[in-house]
C-alpha cells in the first residue's frame, strides 16, 4: 500500500494532473483495493461535512485580509517606513525587506503577493544604492517565506484541520520559531555585510523627526497584528473571528491610505475566490485520501513497516527530514504539506513525537522548498521583479538563508520547547 501511494502520487503528479485531483484519484484507488468498505458511496457526505467547516472559513478571511492590504497599497507604505528605521544597519535596505515580509506574513497568508510587492518596490532602489544583486534578491526571496510560519498562517490552519490538532495552539507554537528565523535572517545579513562590506550597499541614516513621521504607517499594521494574534492567544476569539476582525481593520487601514475603491475591492475578491478554491481542492483531496487511508488501516501497516526497518525514532525522523528536503526541490509548499501529512504525521505521532511540534518542524522544511531550485516559487517572484540578470544569482543569494532554515529545523529537533514552551505555558 505504501509503495502504491508513493508511486501513484509521483506518477500522476508528473503527468501534471492537478494535485487535488491526484489525491482524490489515489483515494478512489485505496478504497477500491485496500479497504473492506465501498467508501466512495459516502463521497458526497464526506465532501459536504469537510467543507461545511467554520474553521476553514478562516482561510478565505485571511486571504482577503492580505489582498486588501497589498492591493490597498499598505504594504508599499510599510516598506518605506521600515526603511527609515532599519537602514542604518549593515546591509541597510535588506532589513526593511525582511521586516516587511515578517509583518505581512504576520497579517496575511499570501506569500507570493507579499514577496512580489516588496520585490517591485525594492529592486529599483537596490540598483541605485549599489547593493550586490545576489544578496539583495536572495534576502527578499527568503524573507517572503516567513509568511507561512508567523501566525496567522493558512498553512497552519490546513495542518490543524487535517491532523485534528488545535489551531490556536499551532499559532502559538509558530511564534517563537518564526520570530527567531526573522531575527536570524537579519543577523545573517549583518554578518555577511560586516565580512564583505562591498555587498551591502550604502548605509543611510534618516533624521529622527522623519523616523517619527513614518510611524503613522507602521503603527496600524502593528495594531492589526497585535489584535489578531493577541485575541487568539488570549482566547477572546477563535481564529475565524480574529480573521474577520482582521479583515475589518484591513479595510479601515487601507481606507486611510486612500486605497479602497471598487476596482481594488473587485480584484481582492477575485484573488480571494481563486486562492480559496485552489487551496480547498487540495485540502478536500487530502482529507479524502486521509479518510481512505485510515479506513484501510494505514497506521497499523506503517507501524509494522517502521518496525521492519529497525530504525530508532531519531533515525526515522532524520529520514523524514531528508525526504522533505528532497521533495522540496520539486514540489511547492501547500502541495508538499497535504500530500505528506496523511503518511508522515501518523508515523511521527506513532513514534511518540508531539503533533504540534511536528507541524512547526514541517513548516520550516516546506518554507525551505520555496527557495530551493528548480521549483522555488519565491525565487521566480524575485527574478520576475528584477527584469534582468540571471536566475542563478537569486539562487546563490538565497543559499545562506536556506542553510539558516535547515539549522532552525535541527534546532527544533534538538530543543522541541522552542515550539512547545508557549503553548504549554499560555
Amino acid at each position, binding site marked *: 500500500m505504501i509503495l502504491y501511494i508513493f508511486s501513484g502520487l509521483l506518477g500522476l503528479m508528473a503527468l501534471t494532473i492537478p494535485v487535488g485531483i491526484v489525491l482524490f484519484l489515489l483515494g478512489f484507488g485505496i478504497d477500491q483495493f485496500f479497504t*473492506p*468498505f*465501498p*467508501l466512495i*458511496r*459516502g463521497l458526497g*457526505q*464526506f465532501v459536504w*461535512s469537510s467543507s461545511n467547516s467554520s474553521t476553514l472559513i478562516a482561510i478565505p478571511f485571511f486571504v482577503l485580509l492580505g489582498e486588501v492590504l497589498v492591493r490597498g497599497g499598505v504594504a508599499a507604505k510599510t516598506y518605506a517606513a521600515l526603511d527609515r528605521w532599519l537602514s542604518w544597519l549593515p546591509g541597510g535596505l535588506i532589513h526593511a525587506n525582511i521586516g516587511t515580509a515578517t509583518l505581512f506574513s504576520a497579517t496575511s497568508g499570501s506569500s507570493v503577493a507579499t514577496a512580489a510587492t516588496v520585490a517591485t518596490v525594492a529592486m529599483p532602489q537596490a540598483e541605485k544604492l549599489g547593493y550586490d544583486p545576489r544578496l539583495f534578491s536572495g534576502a527578499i526571496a527568503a524573507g517572503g517565506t516567513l509568511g507561512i510560519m508567523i501566525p496567522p498562517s493558512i498553512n497552519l490552519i490546513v495542518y490543524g484541520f487535517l491532523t*485534528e490538532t*488545535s489551531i*490556536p*495552539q499551532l499559532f502559538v507554537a509558530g511564534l517563537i520559531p518564526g520570530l527567531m528565523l526573522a531575527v536570524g535572517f537579519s543577523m545573517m545579513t549583518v554578518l555577511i555585510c560586516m565580512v564583505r562590506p562591498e555587498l551591502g550597499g550604502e548605509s543611510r541614516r534618516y533624521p529622527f523627526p522623519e523616523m517619527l513621521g513614518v510611524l503613522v504607517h507602521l503603527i496600524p499594521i502593528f495594531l492589526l497584528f497585535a489584535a489578531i494574534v493577541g485575541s487568539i492567544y*488570549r*482566547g*477572546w476569539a477563535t481564529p475565524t473571528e480574529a480573521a474577520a476582525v482582521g479583515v475589518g481593520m484591513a479595510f479601515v487601514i487601507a481606507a486611510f491610505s486612500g486605497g479602497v475603491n471598487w476596482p481594488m475591492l473587485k480584484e481582492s475578491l477575485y484573488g480571494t475566490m481563486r486562492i480559496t478554491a485552489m487551496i480547498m481542492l487540495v485540502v478536500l483531496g487530502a*482529507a479524502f485520501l*486521509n*479518510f481512505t487511508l*485510515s*479506513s484501510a*488501516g494505514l*497506521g497499523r501497516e506503517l507501524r509494522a513497516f517502521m518496525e521492519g526497518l529497525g530504525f530508532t525514532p531519531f533515525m526515522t525522523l532524520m529520514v523524514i527530514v531528508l525526504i522533505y528536503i528532497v521533495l522540496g526541490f520539486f514540489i511547492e509548499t501547500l502541495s508538499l504539506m497535504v500530500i505528506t501529512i496523511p503518511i508522515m504525521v501518523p508515523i511521527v505521532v506513532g513514534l511518540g513525537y508531539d503533533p504540534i511540534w511536528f507541524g512547526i518542524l514541517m513548516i520550516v522544511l516546506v518554507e525551505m522548498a520555496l527557495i530551493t531550485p528548480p521549483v522555488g516559487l519565491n525565487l521566480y517572484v524575485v527574478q520576475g521583479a528584477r527584469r534582468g540578470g540571471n536566475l542563478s544569482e537569486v539562487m546563490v543569494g538565497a543559499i545562506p538563508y536556506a542553510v539558516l532554515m535547515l539549522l532552525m529545523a535541527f534546532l527544533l529537533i534538538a530543543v522541541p520547547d522552542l515550539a512547545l514552551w508557549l503553548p504549554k505555558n499560555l
Partner: protein
Amino acid sequence: EMLSVVGSWSNLPLYQQFESPFWTEILPEASNGTLEVAMTTHNEMGLGVGDVFNLLGDGVYDVAMTVGDYAVADAPELEGLDVPLVALDADTARAMVDAARPMVNDIFRDRFNSHVLAIAPYPPQIVFCNAEVSGLDDMRGLKVRGSGRMTAKLLEALGAEGVNVDFGEVPGALQRGAIDCAVTGAGSGYNAGWWEVSTHLVTLPLGGWDPVVTAMNMDRWNSLDAETQELIQTTITAEFETPAWAVAQDALVNDVACLTGNAECPYGDARDMVLVEASEADFDAARNILITEVLPDWAARAGNDWAQRWNDSVGAVVGVTVDLD
C-alpha cells in the same frame, strides 16, 4: 461471511470493554468461524459523528454503532430515545430504552435503511463547570456546551445559553472562559482531562444517557439467512447489550470517584473537583421545565404521532406525559 463494522469512540470504555471484544472475538467464535469481522471505529476513520448512520444506510459498511443523539438532524423523533432527567439510575434507563425500542426500530428502518441490533448506554451525561456553582439556579446565564438538541433546549429553558463546541475543543473553551460549563459522560470527561480545566461537577444527568445504537445495513441484514440473523441477535443481546447495561451504574459511581476523589478510583489518579449534588428542589424545577416546555417543543418538531407513541411507551414507563395540542 465478512462483516465490516464501525465502532463508537475508540478511546472510551464502551468500545474497549464491550464492542471490540464482542465483534472481533465473541461473535466470530459463536459462529464457528462462518462470520468474520473487520473492525474500526468512526473516529479512526475520521467520520463526522453526524454521518455515521447516513453512511451505514448507503452501505459504506455493514454494521455501525454510535450515539443516537448524533443522528437527530435526520430524524427529530429519535430525540425521544434520550430524554434527560427522566431516568436517574441504570435500571430505569434500561426500561426506558427497552420501551423505546420498537420506535427506534421503525426510525432506523425508515430514515437510515438499517436494522437495529442493540442499544447500550454511555454513562449518564453530567455537567462539568469551570465556575462556582452550587445548584441549578447558579447556571442561569452561564454558557453551557450541551450534547444533543434536547439537552441544549433544556439548558436554554433553564436560563443557560446553549453553545455548540466540538468535543475536542471543550477543554480550550473552558480554560479561556468561552464557555462556563460542558455536558458529557463522567468517564469521557475524566479520560479527556476535563478536570484540568473545570472545578465543579454537577451530577444531575442533564444530558440523559446518550444511548449508543448498534445497527446493520438493512440490505445486508436481509441478505443473511434466518439462522445467521438469529445467531447475531441472540449473541449480541446476551453478550454485549446485557453486560454493558450491567456495569453502567457502577461506572458512574467510579467515574465520579475518580473526578472528585470522594472514593477509591479504580482507573488511575483521583482528581479533586468539587462535587455538587443537585437538591430535590433543583430536580423538581428542572423536571417541571422539561415537561412543560422542552417536551412539548419536541412534540412539535417530531409530530404528534411520534409524541403519542412516546407517551404510550416510554412515557408510561417513566411516568411522564407530553401534552399534545
